[in-house]
């Protein structure tokens, strides 16, 4: 792959799209950086694998939902299947945004743009960030780092 200096907003092919089935995840590495890649009902999401707390592997965490409440004693679930829980201390992160739910003001993990691109497109080299859009095509999962 490329050197880290030239990585800004570079597309990286990290997997074959049908290699990660809906509900599955894969730990990938780009320039030494571990990234947890999730297939959520056909949509792909990528977040930094290291929990900002003590660097537990989020890819090994349990994927669940967000317990929410409008008032004490009332419980409801939202973000069904979209919240990853660090296997070490249970910190929760939204895999769509990297947003932490255990201290939203202070803690988040980096999230990365992902897309599934057609094989031919990848030969065109890096896309500019401002024009790159997540496209759902086929063949490859691409992370925009």
């Amino acid at each position, binding site marked *: 792959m490329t050197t880290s200096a030239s990585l800004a907003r570079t597309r990286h092919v990290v997997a074959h799209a049908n290699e990660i089935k809906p509900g599955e995840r894969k730990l990938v590495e780009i320039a030494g950086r571990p990234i947890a890649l999730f297939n959520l009902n056909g949509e792909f999401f990528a977040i930094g694998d290291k929990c900002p707390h003590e660097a537990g592997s989020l890819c090994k965490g349990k994927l669940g939902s967000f317990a929410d409440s*409008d*008032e004490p004693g009332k419980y409801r679930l939202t973000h069904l299947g979209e919240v990853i829980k660090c296997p070490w201390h249970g910190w929760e992160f939204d895999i769509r945004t990297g947003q932490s739910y255990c*201290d939203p003001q202070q803690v988040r993990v980096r999230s990365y743009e992902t897309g599934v691109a057609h094989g031919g497109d990848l030969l065109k080299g890096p896309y500019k960030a401002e024009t790159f859009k997540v496209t759902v095509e086929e063949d490859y999962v691409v992370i925009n780092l």
Partner: protein
Amino acid sequence: MNDLANFSNASAIKLKPGIFGHPAIDCDVHIAVPSTEALMPYLDAYWYDAFRSRGINRTSFTMTGDAPNAPMAARPDWRPKDARPGSDLALLQKGALDGFGSSIAIANCIFGGVALHSEDIAAALCKAVNDWVTEQWLNKEPRLRASILVPLNSVELAIEEIERRASDKRFVQVLMLAMGHDLLGKRQHWPIYEAAQRHKLPINIHAGSLYHHPPMAGWGSFAYEDYVAQAFSFENQVLSLVSEGVFQKFPDLKFVLSESGVTWLPACLWRFNKTWRGVRPEIPWVKRIPGDIVRENIRLTLQPFDAPDHSGAVERFVDQMKSDRMLLFSTDFPHWHFEGTDALPVAASSALTKRMLLDNPLETYPRLRETLDISEVAA
């Protein structure tokens, strides 16, 4: 006798600088019922007769943890001769008010009647004490404010007492104990909190126990253990209030911890915060880190302050809590925590001094402003 008719705006208190250079509001001084006999004029006919015929008037409602003969119960110069500490108005005026030049002092009357299993006798006693406080203290000393004493075993009757006092703005908070029958976060208490928030009355959690449960994990043997363990019970209560979601339900309600020792709080919050991050889904109504909730809703009176004086401990507390809004000046008169006027564990010149003496009390007790002429402290 309970209304504000004799306390019009014309007689509103003017704030004047005290001995530390700023106007001072002393948020915890103690007054004591000299004997149950003193409450007899404040009972209705039924209870007057019942107290006489059952000998209740000869019962001392001294709290077990508040032994009047203990040295700490009163400084030698603040201890009246042949009377209960805190029962002498002149001594309180001289020691607590004039002695520190305090413009206002908030009086807590710790009285064992709150503990009775008979809800009705407890309520009759609380009503009598609050009437007695009004007539014997508030009406005689315009610088005094007081807490509403409520029966702790009856939510319904506690609310009745709060409603009875609410129109008298000299009652500025509701008094509860650090160790009652159950944890204070539990929903059974919430109607009390609803009434308190509606009337802008903070809840004062004061050291003290009904001994319905051991003060520690079991029953200790010594008064020493009992006194030290009070601080642990405050931790329990703060944890309960946060986890049960009291502050989600009553965001404007403040809880004031009195005689808590203060300095345990930052270490305790580290544990609250750390653990919450991992088990948040259990209490999903807690949407902010517990430390933030505590910072906004919990206040602590200053004395006794568990750290060496002038050691930087107050500043460290403020730094660790990321807030200079939490500490409220108190002397804890007549209790013996310091000599002379050495009630401030920081230098009088510290920026924290004015916050603790004046700003924080005014922010914590909104009703204080209603009996104060604050034109001079608007800045």
